């Protein structure tokens, strides 16, 4: 069985070291927060200016001055801190986050990331903080389905969509397998309900076994 979004999130959470400083991108990666073990000590950063963000706010907890990067009301945990946008992005761009997890349209075998623009001529471009996260974190993880809805692979020899960052992705977590990207190419670390051979047959990217 391929993994559900929630199961993928659990796999990513398992691979994030205890006590790491982590930014979870808007969308699916936010699910990861629910899967850290109690006492993991993972500290979440949100680029709109906060460290040690808590879970989504409920009912009376909702404070319009306290949101995550997706503008969803959130809570604060003891030991949090607030800072302005230039300080927040300096933290990202200066290489201080241990891990960021981003969604993607495509990832290339060389670690290029495309996640901000489909290239459609009528699309209104909008990038947010994706390019800063892509170049800044010590490790960049991508979480996505391995194939698009039309069946085309999203792990590709070269991205056809406009890039977010060059050679920046370290790991790709998908519903069918987890991949490590590096100077030695693409290694399959784990498969889910399928085999390396089956995946290999459906991708244009040479795969190495873990």
């Amino acid at each position, binding site marked *: 069985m391929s993994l559900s979004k929630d199961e993928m999130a659990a796999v990513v959470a398992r691979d994030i070291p205890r006590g790491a400083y982590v930014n979870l991108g808007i969308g699916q990666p936010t699910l990861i927060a629910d899967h850290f073990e109690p006492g993991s000590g993972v500290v979440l950063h949100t680029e709109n200016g906060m460290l040690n963000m808590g879970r989504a706010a409920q009912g009376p907890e909702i*404070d*319009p001055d306290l949101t995550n990067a997706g503008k969803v009301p959130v809570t604060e945990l003891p030991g949090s801190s607030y800072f302005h946008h230039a300080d927040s992005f300096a933290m990202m761009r200066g290489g201080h986050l241990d891990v960021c997890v981003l969604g993607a349209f495509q990832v290339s075998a060389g670690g290029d990331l495309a996640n901000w623009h489909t290239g459609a001529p009528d699309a209104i471009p*909008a*990038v*947010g903080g994706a390019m800063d996260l892509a170049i800044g974190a010590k490790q960049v993880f991508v979480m996505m389905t391995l194939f698009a809805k039309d069946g085309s692979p999203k792990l590709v020899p070269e991205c056809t969509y406009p890039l977010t*960052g060059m050679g920046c992705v370290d790991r790709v977590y998908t519903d069918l397998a987890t991949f490590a990207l590096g100077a030695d190419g693409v290694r399959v670390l784990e498969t889910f309900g399928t085999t390396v051979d089956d995946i290999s047959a459906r991708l244009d990217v040479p795969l190495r076994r873990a």
Partner: protein
Amino acid sequence: MTAAHCADPDEAVAGIADGSTVLVGGFGMAGMPVQLIDALIRQGARDLTVVSNNAGNGDTGLAALLAERRVRKVICSFPRQSDSWVFDGLYRAGEIELEVVPQGNLAERLRAAGAGIGAFFCPTGAGTPLAEGKETRTIAGRTHVLEMPIHGDVALIGAHRSDRMGNLVYRKTARNFGPVMATAAALTVAQVHDVVEIGRIDPEHVVTPSIYVDRVVAVGSEQ
């Protein structure tokens, strides 16, 4: 000079000239200077360049300013949102200019303007369409892109509290762009929930020192 305390938002935005570059704080509604934007709509300046993270939501605030055809150009990181129909319509009709800037470059280019940095090299966006036509340089083995400061004629920001000198503090993630934009504009206007006497804000806790604040207007408690 010590910040001027304005009687209302209209007084706070008086004199903003046509053609101005206006920095508008806020990230979503947090820190958004709603009353100042409404006053700017009434004030009438046109042909504006607006620098803000987003390009307006729904039909109020920035979106209403755009709908009035008062904005020539938007510089932002993320114009496209579920309720950004006003911007979307103007953009698709070719009636507004857009410069999309990675959010970190937006913040850092504003900081550079405030800090006297003439230009800086950073890796964000290297190899992407947003760096096309920009000067690049390899530093420490990595491609860097040259980015220029963004200076504002006016900054409109939302803060939590001011003292009579103009020292500002913010609340939680409503801090966002306010402190940076305050440094980057020739005229900085802050709307705050309340104004307290000098000495009531601990000098250790001031986020925006009074030197950056030209006008303050109290707009009452948070909605």
